[in-house]
């Protein structure tokens, strides 16, 4: 039982990582005022690119992950063009992007024969000798590269967001594009580039799923995690560290699922698989319940396109 518990905790970060990274990317976009529903699609792009690059290069999964981030960022320019430049309804554009990416990745995965091809992917790194410490070593010092990088990435993004001129402008653009415009900030450029940067993180989340977790590409490998990440953003009130906390919670649940079955507790398999979605719904209801009538901390201009010379 004890062994099982340590195993569960030690596996949690691996399950939490895609939620955390995707939510962080989404927080960036939404703090700049772009309602980003594309996560599920962009994660698929990242996942396919990660596997595709690994297979094409015959290895180098770390490099493949970087390529996946770049690809995700490039595909997101289509979304940025629609929402930021063409002021298309952000919900419609986001959904169209998800379905576009689902179709595109399924098509390319088939055409290039990347589907169902196992890869080596990235593995655990043991930080010797710390990894030999009982319990703690297994939990904290035997993880993969990306998990080790998550804290620095969060620190960096949070710092840029809250403690830099770029972050100040980015948040201003999301809170009040009119005020930002009057202050001489190029709202369009800030939003466009933020979508690209945020999507790179979402792509990283997707690549992590295929290159570090499943180590294989199948159609729809992300299985709705993008939507859960979106719910996490609301739970986190658009704050990075809270999102990491939420991601760990989801990671813990997902990591517990196979272990509950292994422990001999009888729960029908498909009810088990429902769990993450049901918990997400539960969390959304809880958040809504607890903040009834109060402030949600939602960025003031979330989902609103900006046109300067608008007149009624």
């Amino acid at each position, binding site marked *: 039982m004890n062994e099982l518990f340590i195993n569960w905790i030690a596996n949690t970060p691996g399950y939490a990582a895609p939620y955390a990274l995707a939510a962080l990317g989404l927080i960036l976009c939404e703090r700049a005022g772009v309602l980003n*529903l594309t996560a599920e699609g962009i994660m698929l792009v990242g996942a396919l690119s990660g596997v595709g690059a690994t297979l094409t290069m015959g290895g180098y999964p770390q490099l493949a992950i970087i390529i996946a981030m770049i690809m995700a960022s490039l595909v997101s320019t*289509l979304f940025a063009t*629609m929402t930021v430049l*063409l*002021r*298309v*309804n952000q*919900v*419609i*554009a986001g*959904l*169209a*992007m998800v*379905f*576009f990416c*689902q*179709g*595109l*990745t*399924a*098509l390319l995965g*088939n*055409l290039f024969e990347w589907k169902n091809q196992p890869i080596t992917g990235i593995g655990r790194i043991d930080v010797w000798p710390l990894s030999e410490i009982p319990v703690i070593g297994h939990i904290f010092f035997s993880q993969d590269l990306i998990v080790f990088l998550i804290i620095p990435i969060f620190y960096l993004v949070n710092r840029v967001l809250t403690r830099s001129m770029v972050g100040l402008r980015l948040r201003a653009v999301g809170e009040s594009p009119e005020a930002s415009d009057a202050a001489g900030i190029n709202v369009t450029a800030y939003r466009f580039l933020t979508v690209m940067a945020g999507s790179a993180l979402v792509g990283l989340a997707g690549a992590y799923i295929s290159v570090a977790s499943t180590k294989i590409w199948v*159609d729809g490998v992300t*299985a*709705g995690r993008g*939507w*859960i990440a*979106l*719910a996490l953003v*609301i739970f986190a009130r658009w704050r990075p560290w809270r999102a990491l906390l939420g991601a760990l919670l989801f990671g813990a649940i997902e990591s517990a699922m196979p272990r509950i079955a292994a422990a001999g507790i009888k729960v*029908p*398999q*498909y*009810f088990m*698989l*429902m769990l993450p*979605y*049901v918990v*997400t*719904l539960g969390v*959304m*209801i809880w958040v*809504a*319940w607890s903040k*009834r009538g109060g402030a949600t901390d939602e960025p003031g201009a979330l989902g609103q396109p900006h*046109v*300067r*010379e*608008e*007149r009624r």
Partner: protein
Amino acid sequence: MSEDAISTVPNPATSKRRLHGIRFNLEVRRDISPWWQAAYLAGFIALGIGISAIILIWAGVPAGDLIDQFLVETLTDSDNLRSVLFQGAPFILVGLSASVAFRARFWNLGLEGQMIWGGIGATFISIHHIGPEALRLPIMIFAAAACAMAWVAIAGQLKLKLAVNEIISTLLMNYVALNFLYHLLYGPWRDATDGFPHSPKYADFERLPDFFSFSGALPLALITALGVWWLVSFTRFGFYMKFVQASDKVAGAVGIPVARITLVSVLLSGALAGIAGFVVASGQEGRLIQNFSDGYLFSGILIAFLSRNNPIVAVIVAMLVSMLFISGQSLQVFYQIPFAMVQLVQAIIVICVAASEFLIRHRIHIVR
């Protein structure tokens, strides 16, 4: 007051003079003629079809066969035509479902989950032989609508009472419904006769009858479309829906019962999706199969979006999507093009139409 209060330094900070070139200004249009609107729309749909054709050719379909596959084969071959007409019915229903919800400002992205619950409701009636044989079919349709309504009511109430974002809640509920379907098909409802994970086959009187060798699903969908058209265009309810869609704040202030209108619309949307679920289950295999609802969510949104939530236009768009769907199946068979292509083409067309709205709503003003 000290000298400090204002800065007296002349400030020619940016002395570089701008070239007197051309500058583009973006303006919101006050109005646009319907002809220009139609022209922009047609132009961008053509662009979308063009891009899709290029991708198809790149994926290995000979250019010469494209028109053949998409138009000639689909409409002249009687088997294909029958498939198009049958397949159109659930598309009409999901399109109506999405548009009714969108008209009440409710992003119902749970169409697939509601279809699944519709299928489950109908199949429950079938498995437990509820009601006399003569009335079995209407009972099944009713059960499909009722189950789907109950399912969507959760998201509807969460939005109205707690302002829970329905985009995310309805989407997540699709995954819950799908896993519940799997539970049934791999568990209690597994077909005992062949052991496959699908439900037992419906009896003949539990399936929609054919009319003149065409499926009865289409008349059902067309009558539904007329009903929805009447509801949104001529009734008080439809009139109120327009206000709720335009601005729920204004609607509330002028005395319209916004919550009631929204809830009824959401329930109606769910019922339509549920019936679509039954139509697919009954018409295709005559039983529930694992992924029978796949792909209808996006098609429903696409149809609602392209038809601008107009029920009559939705029928036409649904038939076009049906053609695309059936040609996609042929492409899969003849050229090994993955079926995902159909989804990709739909997405490309939506993206192009969305882009055309930019030119419909804005004007680019050139200043010298």
